[in-house]
């Protein structure tokens, strides 16, 4: 048994489940508290420091934080973290003068960024204020990457996107639209100090089945959405089949409804438990009366003289074991479903036709570039990758995180520093005790249920492609939802020498997550406090002075209610705000100044 080392910054960080799960480690509880105080602009800026695009992400983030949220340990639904992010964006005041500025003088270093998606924009956001001359090359006439071309405007309005991209362009970033980079070899010759490749993974997969080459009206989802976004496609047939049941499929089916379809079916090969789409995207599609058919495996395209008339499917049956895995499958029949159009939404790949083999950039056997997971550097010095182009399709918030890391690397590279010597994350603890029964946060447990998002009525939302469906939270919903957050960053900090083993904390804890036990192996100690979730830490204190026992805390179920600290007669338990610092490019200089001053 080893006592827990809470000085490891990851220890308390991991307790803040949402922040730990967020690729960019957005300080969620801190911004939720700011919202609860009506400080929307502050909440926006705090978000922006981590995730750069709070308005965008507050609508369409993949929200890995929500399934991780601690709230799900005491009830079904997580805190509506994403919706609250939008609240910060919707209600912020004019924050333009709080944004990083274009510096008076550049540092003379030139950076080429290929592709104007969230990854490149994040790199530019971090580097331009430091004096780097950033040039973004984009093949399309509009910036934003898939956020523009594939995420439909009814989920992400154009003005929201443009405003947040605009903040970065205003830092003196040069955006060259309609400028595809056709040769890496040429680009390397142009004298840039570093190159960032943020070209995404926007090659949609095709489905080679009988009839594919003969039949018309078969679209590849990603390309089709792109054509819709650029208004090259303005309508579709009445009956549409979508193949695949991921998030792209959800955008394709809902977009079809807005282009004139009235019978849209999403065809899934497997049962519902295997759907790739996020639950909320499925919910939104089904609300629009999209039908999802399971256990249909595509077999052939049916056509009459080249005109698509339908699709044939094998009807599947699966044997699923107790752990939910498919162990066997069989075909139990066949069916043909008539349709006017088929949209294929079965995945996407990277493709780099413009990167010559002789550039020194290695690709693995799946044609994915070999990119270092920490530095984001490719096998060619000074060429960095991030976003979907680095490791295949992910999502916006990962693209942002890659962008931050790549920016650190580029900064170090240009300053001639080692890329691998990166500053470790930092955690500082601040006191929160304000007085008797009083903490700097609202420690009472609010048992309200998750607030639902209001939507534009079904009768109105299909009129135009750009009608945003989600209306945002009302003041009542904001007020309730913010109190559902448990303030997981208010850490329980234990000072072993002060403990008199009176049991007060153990007895008061509403979730029984504390106990005292003789020192033993962690597995034994876990049992002593019924800590069943091995993914979450067990806190083990030093041996206590009176009995040599150790204080145990199961971090899994703690509500951060502060009652242990309130009840402790010697303040051995204290509630302290843990502030996590994740370094970004440029923090370096600031840190050195502070360290020198200390």
């Amino acid at each position, binding site marked *: 048994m080893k006592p827990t080392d809470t000085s490891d910054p990851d220890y308390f960080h991991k307790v803040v489940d949402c922040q730990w799960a967020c690729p960019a480690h957005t300080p969620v509880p801190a911004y939720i508290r700011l919202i609860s105080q009506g400080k929307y602009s502050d909440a926006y800026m705090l978000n922006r420091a981590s995730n750069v695009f709070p308005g965008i992400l507050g609508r369409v983030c993949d929200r890995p934080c929500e399934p991780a949220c601690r709230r799900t340990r005491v009830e079904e639904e997580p805190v509506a973290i994403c919706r609250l992010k939008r609240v910060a964006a919707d209600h912020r005041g004019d924050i333009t003068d709080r944004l990083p500025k274009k510096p008076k003088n550049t540092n003379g270093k030139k950076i080429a960024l290929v592709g104007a998606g969230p990854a490149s924009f994040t790199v530019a956001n971090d580097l331009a204020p430091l004096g780097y001359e950033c040039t973004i090359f984009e093949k399309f006439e509009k910036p934003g990457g898939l956020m523009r071309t594939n995420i439909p405007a009814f989920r992400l309005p154009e003005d929201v996107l443009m405003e947040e991209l605009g903040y970065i362009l205003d830092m003196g970033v040069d955006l060259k639209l309609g400028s595809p980079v056709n040769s890496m070899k040429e680009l390397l010759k142009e004298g840039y100090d570093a190159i960032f490749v943020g070209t995404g993974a926007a090659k949609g997969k095709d489905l080679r089945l009988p009839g594919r080459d003969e039949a018309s009206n078969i679209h590849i989802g990603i390309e089709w959405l792109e054509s819709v976004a650029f208004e090259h496609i303005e309508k579709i047939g009445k009956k549409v089949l979508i193949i695949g049941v991921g998030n792209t499929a959800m955008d394709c089916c809902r977009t079809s409804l807005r282009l004139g379809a009235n019978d849209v079916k999403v065809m899934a090969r497997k049962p519902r438990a295997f759907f790739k789409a996020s639950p909320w995207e499925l919910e939104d599609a089904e609300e629009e009366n999209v039908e999802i058919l399971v256990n249909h495996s595509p077999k052939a395209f049916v056509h009459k003289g080249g005109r698509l008339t339908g699709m044939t499917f094998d009807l599947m049956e699966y044997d699923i074991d107790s752990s939910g895995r498919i162990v066997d499958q069989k075909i139990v029949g066949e069916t043909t479903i008539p349709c006017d159009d088929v949209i294929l939404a079965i995945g996407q790949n990277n493709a780099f036709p413009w990167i010559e083999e002789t550039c020194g950039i290695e690709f693995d056997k799946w044609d994915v570039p070999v990119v270092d997971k920490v530095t984001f550097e490719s096998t060619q010095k000074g060429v960095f990758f991030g976003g979907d182009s680095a490791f295949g399709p992910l999502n916006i918030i990962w693209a942002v995180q890659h962008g931050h890391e790549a920016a650190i690397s580029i900064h170090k590279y240009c300053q001639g520093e080692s890329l691998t010597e990166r500053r470790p994350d930092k955690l500082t603890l601040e006191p929160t005790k304000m007085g008797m029964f009083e903490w700097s946060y609202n420690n009472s447990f609010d048992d309200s249920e998750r607030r639902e998002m209001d939507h534009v009525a079904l009768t109105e939302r299909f009129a135009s492609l750009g009608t945003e469906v989600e209306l945002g939270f009302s003041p009542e919903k904001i007020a309730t939802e913010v109190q559902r957050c448990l303030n997981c960053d208010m850490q329980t900090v234990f000072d072993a020498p002060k403990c008199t083993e*009176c049991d*007060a904390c153990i007895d008061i804890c509403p979730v029984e997550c504390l106990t005292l036990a003789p020192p033993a192996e962690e597995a034994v100690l876990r049992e002593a406090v019924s800590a*069943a979730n091995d993914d979450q830490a067990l806190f083990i204190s030093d041996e206590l002075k009176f009995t040599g026992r150790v204080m145990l805390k199961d971090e899994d179920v703690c509500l951060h209610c502060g009652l242990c600290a309130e009840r402790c007669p010697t303040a051995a338990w204290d509630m302290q705000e843990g502030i996590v610092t994740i370094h970004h490019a440029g923090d370096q200089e600031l840190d050195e100044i502070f360290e020198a001053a200390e």
Partner: protein
Amino acid sequence: MVSFTKPKIRRKNEPTNDIGLIRSDYDGAMSTLCAGCGHDSVTAAMGRAFFELAIEPYRAVKVSGIGCSSKTTTYFMSQAHGNNTVHGRMPAVATGAMAANADLTYIGVSGDGDSLSIGLGQLVHAMRRNVNMLYMLENNGVYGLTKGQFSAAADIGSTAKKGGANEMAPIDPCALALSVGATFVARSFSGDKEQLVNLIKAGLKHKGFAIIDVTSPCVSFNDHKGSTKSYEHTFKYYHKAVHADYVPPSAEIRASYEDGETMPIELHDGGVINLRKLDNGYDPTDRASAFSKVLESGQSDEILTGLLYIDETTKDMTTRKNLPKRALNTIDYAELNPGANKMAGLMKEFG
């Protein structure tokens, strides 16, 4: 923000007892005692014992006297019956309640002041009568509620927080209980829940008067250096002599007796208390042996704990006096009121 209420939360996979209740169903109002008071820990142990025994709260009665300890009946099992009586009078109220309804589980909660000064006579007679109840004596050596005067349990030489040392001999509740016929005598410590919860369960299931003398430090007035009832002192001199496990009637009894150190005591409800002697040559079923052992330990700093004495054979008050086994209000009037003729006959007997 001000918040000092324990929220009621049902965790996923929260354990339930045999009647489907969760541990917090046995909670009461928020305690108003000082943070760190031993009494709160005893309260938690009582809540846990009732939970583990799966006693319906409405089938239980909590009675107490006056003092910080006596206040604690409010802090657990809010759905049980209860009465905070006047100072030292809890045993009489419990005895009367028992006569009116012997079909409930009775727990009395008191302090060393309430029990050993003003209430001493009451306590002794309840023990003599062998009233079927568990009496929790939360012993901190002082009158906590009235700001820390020495109680009759204060050890000679123990110092007050401000002022001198106690010079009078203490009353040892266990020695007292053994001398007046209590049938279940135990000592424990608020800081040892493992032992305490087991003793409470055994005490509640014992048929007859059970007393547990629980050292329960007063953090505000008697937890300093020089006090023999502080956390530090108790942890230091605490000694386990006998270990007791309550095994409910349905459970399979799997203890191993062959080493001669584990002794099963069968209870009236079919359950068993498994005694495990941790000290050699100690027989917790022999009153004289227990008495001498308790007196002996009283001569040293050692705090002798565990189930020190048990006697399941002596009849409790209800049995001995042939009182109704069920509540008087469930007996119909004709049976309850023997009528004028019976009364006249009875009067003649004493004629």
